[in-house]
């Protein structure tokens, strides 16, 4: 037992060091967790229990999505969908297509190609929100456009995840589409309920004791995730909907209380996900991942450029570069496919791809200001 504890301590302490290092250089810790996971996998790969990994992944994913749902209010989602429609459509077309095309080029099945499309489509709202705050850009004019693209992507996941979950489970695309339909209805209902009656459930759950809130919200979260799984429209979406449906002062408390739980579970998830992969595949997927990364970072640049129409070229460039980073969601999607036993290359490709974009994206947007298009005063004169 002491040996297991020692090993666990070593892993957690290494993660702590990595998180510290990431914070120091102003990066998201996600790519470092993935690297640590690859390292763990190289030593202990065969000893890791698949079931334990899957259980941990389910809980971590449910928590990630629940917290994401908490981030947004029903009104924000509704108004973002209305105002960010153009950006959202362009985003999907520009960034989903390259992934699917690459998957088909590799000779993968259609479903695996769709999985890769999802991986390249979804930007990391976690990384991007943090980068915008760190760079003092939350008040910039392009920021609402960036955030509205992220919201649309996160909502799109509510349709995409059930479709892919069912399709990967061997249900085929038609059953997948059916379960996506169920999910859309559920999302619609949850949005409606949150806008109309969001207060009731929150009032039922709320309590003066932190412990009571923590346990009841966590319990409800697991219940909803289980129901989502049973009804075959993915546990993750159930968690997301619960997050949206909660409202009022309870949201702030749930966020404070469950934030640390989410952080630990997510860190473990990233490590375990990377640890179960075949490291031997990474050299083989490096070149495709680099090309795919380069292409889809350019398509994100174009997305940001289109989405931030109301801004001057430097602002549009900042928006485009900000959107480049992929992170937690791409890993979540890849994990679904890896658990379902997809082609052994998909996992390593996804990890390499996330590493590249999560490291390069924030760097690109930090230095986007150095690219001199035209001086702001000059373009302003050219506008009547």
């Amino acid at each position, binding site marked *: 037992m002491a040996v297991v504890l020692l090993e666990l301590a070593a892993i957690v302490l290494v993660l702590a060091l990595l998180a510290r290092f990431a914070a120091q250089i102003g990066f998201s810790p996600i790519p470092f967790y993935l690297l640590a996971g690859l390292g763990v996998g190289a030593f202990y790969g065969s000893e890791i229990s698949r079931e334990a990994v899957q259980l941990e992944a389910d809980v971590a994913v449910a928590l990630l999505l629940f917290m994401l749902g908490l981030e*947004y209010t029903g009104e924000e989602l509704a108004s973002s969908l209305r105002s960010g429609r153009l950006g959202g459509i362009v985003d999907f077309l520009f960034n989903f297509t390259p992934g699917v095309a690459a998957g088909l080029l590799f000779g993968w099945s259609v479903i695996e190609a769709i999985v890769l499309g999802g991986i390249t489509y979804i930007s990391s709202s976690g990384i991007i929100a943090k980068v915008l705050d760190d760079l003092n850009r939350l008040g910039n004019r392009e920021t609402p456009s960036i955030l509205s693209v992220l919201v649309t992507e996160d909502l799109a996941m509510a349709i995409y995840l059930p479709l892919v979950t069912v399709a990967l489970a061997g249900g085929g695309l038609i059953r997948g589409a059916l379960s996506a339909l169920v999910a859309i209805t559920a999302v619609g209902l949850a949005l409606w309920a949150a806008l109309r009656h969001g207060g009731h459930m929150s009032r039922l759950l709320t309590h003066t004791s932190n412990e009571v809130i923590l346990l009841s919200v966590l319990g409800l979260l697991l219940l909803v995730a289980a129901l989502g799984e049973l009804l075959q429209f993915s546990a993750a979406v159930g968690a997301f909907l619960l997050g949206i449906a909660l409202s009022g002062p309870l949201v702030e408390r749930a966020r404070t209380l469950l934030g640390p739980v989410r952080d630990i579970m997510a860190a473990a998830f990233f490590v375990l996900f990377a640890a179960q992969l075949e490291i031997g595949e990474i050299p083989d997927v490096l070149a495709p991942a680099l090309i795919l990364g380069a292409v889809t970072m350019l398509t994100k640049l174009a997305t940001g450029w289109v989405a931030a129409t109301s801004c001057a070229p430097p602002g549009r460039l900042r928006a485009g570069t900000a959107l480049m980073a992929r992170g937690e969601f791409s890993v979540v999607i890849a994990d679904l496919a890896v658990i379902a036993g997809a082609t052994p290359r998909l996992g390593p490709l996804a990890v390499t791809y996330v590493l590249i974009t999560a490291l390069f994206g924030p760097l690109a947007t930090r230095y986007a200001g150095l690219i001199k298009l035209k001086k702001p005063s000059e373009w302003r004169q050219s506008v009547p």
Partner: protein
Amino acid sequence: MLPIRETRLPGVGVRFDFTAKGGERVGVIVHRSGRRDVIVCSPQDPDVCQEVMHLDEEEALALVEAMGVSHSTGEIAKLQLALGGLSIDWVEIESGSAADARTVYDVEHVEPIDASIVAVVRGVDTIASPPSSFVLEVGDTAILVGTSEGAATLTRLLTGG
């Protein structure tokens, strides 16, 4: 007042901003956590925040306090203080008021009232306990003390035409 734009920042909070006379975009981001960012953008490039100040709730309140001095005294002028059945009130004599060019005695004795003028602020001068022969004029602020009904009646006499 300048029109203030309100922009939702999903997952972050709400941004309020306006364009100042000098052309700078000035605003506040109200985070859900209670944090407030004060932002200032240069007139040359209003897309970018040139200055961002992160304030927690306490600091934001301190800033409001510091900026709101003249505004908040104006608010207080409209308040009535009540002390155990005793009312203290401020009334400015405006042009057209019946009290203009009349003595304190005349104003206080139009009808029997349970209140009296205990001081008058005229410009920078404060006349505490003015004599009955003191003549009020437009721009004076009369300080009244009395029962709440008495103060209300006296206020009516001082402001009425």
